[in-house]
């Protein structure tokens, strides 16, 4: 039984019910968010989610160009999702393609739903999402980062969107798929949630699920979104709670946060990478 025709002999779920990276089916990958990492942007956020690395920057509200796009009654949210050519193992051809256009569109529509656009008629709020490293679930990581960046930019909104995917791998419903699970799995369901009201602002499904399976997946990712929402809030509190006078001089070196520590501590891959460097 398979989704996209891609088959593999990788055992996606082992006898103990553990996944290839050792997670339980309802476990998230390690998530790390840093707010306000870019100086030139009005607001920004950096997200490391498992092996995903995503940077989001927000400009505006600013004058809307081209002029014909501007709405006399409210602001528009323009999102630009872009994958770096080095973000995947085979070099990605740079520039917009069908996939990134689709993701840009759904993310701007999700964000438009929470931002108080009526306060800024005739303007545009520009959100740039740059995927530096991809390992499945970048649209969720992008939307999560974009929400933090919008809050950092001081844009008024109902709530910060949290986003997470779930899906079906080897006939099991799992949370937050990684690359192999996405490629050789049976279904992938990304979800964008407004945590305070429980509204769904993004929901897609790639693959097939029965109604029961779908409900289970949705419950799983909804719960995960509440956890993600806390990490988002924590990132902003960290940036704004600490009085700048308290931050040691070398603090600048650690922003963005070092990538490997705390994420995969003691991962043999890291060791081999270090050894190769030494040889």
């Amino acid at each position: 039984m398979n989704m996209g025709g891609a088959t593999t002999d990788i055992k996606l779920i082992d006898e103990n019910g553990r996944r290839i990276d050792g997670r339980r089916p309802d476990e998230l990958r390690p998530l790390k968010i840093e707010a306000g990492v870019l100086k030139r942007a009005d607001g920004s956020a950096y997200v490391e989610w498992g092996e995903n690395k995503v940077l989001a920057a927000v400009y505006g509200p600013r004058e809307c160009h081209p002029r014909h796009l501007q709405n006399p009654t409210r602001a528009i949210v323009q999102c630009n999702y872009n994958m770096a050519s080095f973000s995947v193992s085979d070099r990605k051809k740079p520039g917009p393609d069908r996939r990134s256009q689709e993701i840009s569109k759904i993310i701007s529509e999700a964000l438009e739903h929470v931002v108080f656009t009526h306060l800024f008629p005739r303007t545009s709020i520009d959100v740039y999402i740059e995927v530096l490293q991809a390992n499945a679930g970048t649209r969720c990581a992008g939307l999560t980062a974009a929400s933090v960046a919008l809050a950092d930019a001081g844009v008024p909104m109902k709530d910060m969107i949290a986003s997470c995917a779930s899906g079906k791998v080897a006939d099991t419903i799992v949370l937050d798929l990684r690359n192999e699970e996405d490629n050789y799995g049976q279904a992938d369901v990304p979800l964008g949630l407004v945590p305070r009201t429980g509204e769904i602002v993004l929901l897609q499904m790639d693959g097939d699920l029965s109604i029961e399976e779908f409900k289970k997946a949705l419950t799983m990712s909804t719960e995960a979104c509440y956890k993600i929402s806390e990490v988002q809030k924590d990132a902003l509190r960290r940036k704004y709670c600490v009085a700048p006078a308290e931050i040691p001089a070398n603090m600048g070196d650690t922003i963005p946060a070092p990538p490997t520590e705390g994420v995969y501590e003691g991962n043999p891959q890291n060791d081999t990478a270090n050894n190769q460097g030494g040889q």
Partner: protein
Amino acid sequence: MHGTAAERPQGRANAPDGFVLCHSAGPRSAQEQKMSSMNETEDSKEECSRQDSERELVLPGDFITDGKFKAGSGTFMEDGKIYASTLGIKSMRSNFVNVVPLSGQYIPKVGDQVIGIVMDVGPSNWLVDINSPYPAPMHINEAPWRVDFGDTARFLNVGEAILARIFMVDEVKHVQVSMKEHGLRKIQGGQIVTISHSKVPRVIGRNGSMIQTIKNYTNCRIIVGQNGRIWVDGDAEAVANAVKAIKIIEDEAQSVGLTEKLKEFLEGTQKEKKV
């Protein structure tokens, strides 16, 4: 590094306008432990609110209060409950709840004094950039001079700065500025620095105390526009120091004991002068 654990409480007490963000007085290491761990977010939240319940940080969507209060700026009401809409500091005054933003664009308000830069010259008006998403035209009737139709460029040209007042904003944010008031004029000489407009109240200080301190020490003429543009004029060296002082305020607007730190900096510049 100033502000060791022993000095800090004192510094806070001395801060005149008390624009103190909720901030943990705990040791640095405690802060670091908090980084990015999911289950510890509750701790940081509690710590913040306990430290400074008056100056509590709120995030978009945070519940503030229900009943009795009216939703002011930076908040919204849903099902009789008031939530924060922007990231900022919660403030409850009489029967209003406001959130004082910590970032964001300048949105023009009628009566604001702003520093604008002429972007374009038309036959009967000038288009002025007021550091906001909305450009502000100024009609010749609103200029302090008698200007004939088509003669606008003789009075103000592209790139020149003016001190103006917002005299009209309509519901679709069409803005108009005016210079027809005592004290409003074309700005000549000096230097303009731009800061985030949300830091403007901090630069001015309570009853203008902060800006007065800079003026006293540097002997500069300073005008602060509500849109985050600040004009500084005077002796070249003094201007440089005043600009540095303003940057210090902008960078550390949230920190404790800022007034002391600023005075220390300004004292330092004066000593250098004598040597």
